[in-house]
């Protein structure tokens, strides 16, 4: 019986590397867009997104606001902070989990129907249902496509030649 398929030395490592870089790009782009689209009253919420390795990880909402009630009335939004994803290494990794650690996150995400976000004139507090719309309204899908393209242009994973060179990532 004829053998099906063929073997390329190093190809598995190459694919794993592409997968890891794509996942990392996607996670960082998603968080950057969440920071952009989400509310920024004090800026504390948007700077407290976290990216952890592994899917389905629990990210507890444990962080209290560092602002007093008085400070929250007329805050100056904190500068936006870049959130980086830890590198995924090796085979059999399980991607990432993204979450926010602020205790009031459900209010900021519009997931708490009893919670009302602080609003004010000329301030970005994000439109209603911004988070659900982000996930289901097509933006997440666009980011994943963009991450694939961006990762494909990464010089460290371009020019696969096969053999041992491909394993030197």
């Amino acid at each position, binding site marked *: 019986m004829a053998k099906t398929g063929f073997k390329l030395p190093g190809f598995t490592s190459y694919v794993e590397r592409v997968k890891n870089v794509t996942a990392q790009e996607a996670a960082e782009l998603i968080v950057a867009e969440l920071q952009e689209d989400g509310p920024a009253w004090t800026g504390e919420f948007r700077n407290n997104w976290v990216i952890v390795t592994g899917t389905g990880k629990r990210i507890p909402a444990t962080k209290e606001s560092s602002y007093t009630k008085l400070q929250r009335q007329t805050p100056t939004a904190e500068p936006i902070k870049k959130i980086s994803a830890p590198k995924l290494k090796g085979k059999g990794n399980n991607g990432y989990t993204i979450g926010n650690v602020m205790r009031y996150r459900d209010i900021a995400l519009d997931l708490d*129907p009893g919670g009302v976000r602080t609003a004010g004139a000329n301030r970005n507090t994000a439109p*209603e249902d911004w988070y659900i719309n982000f996930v289901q309204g097509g933006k997440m899908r666009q980011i994943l496509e963009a991450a694939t393209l961006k990762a494909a242009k990464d010089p460290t994973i371009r020019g696969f030649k096969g053999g041992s060179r491909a394993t030197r990532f």
Partner: protein
Amino acid sequence: MTLQDIRRHFETPVVDTCTALNIPYRPANTLEPNGDAYSEFVEARLQFGAMMEGIVGDCTNLENIRGSFIIEYFGPKGRGPARAQEVMELLFCEMLALKGVTDINGPNFTELENRPYYFSRMSMAIRAHNEAP
């Protein structure tokens, strides 16, 4: 379809189900009628998300509209989940059968802490296109 046509397309099964179940339906941007902890009602909101995608070729349908449709049920607290489940299950089946609904998340059920309601929500991704005139 215009944006209003799209809204009508997704809202109609919700309105019909609410009418059949004799539950008040509150569309987006309407004044909240008087209610209390003993009343029940359904809300739905439509948000448009990614509206444009580049298309190559001679195509008159230029817009590929995506968005999210959210249905929420508010019912009396302390009476068990049966009624909420009945309402949401019917709404779920209606939305599942509706063209343009691509992914339903929920329904989730919870007792609200700060309001006297038992609450359920499901959200779904929607797709439509806006035909060029």
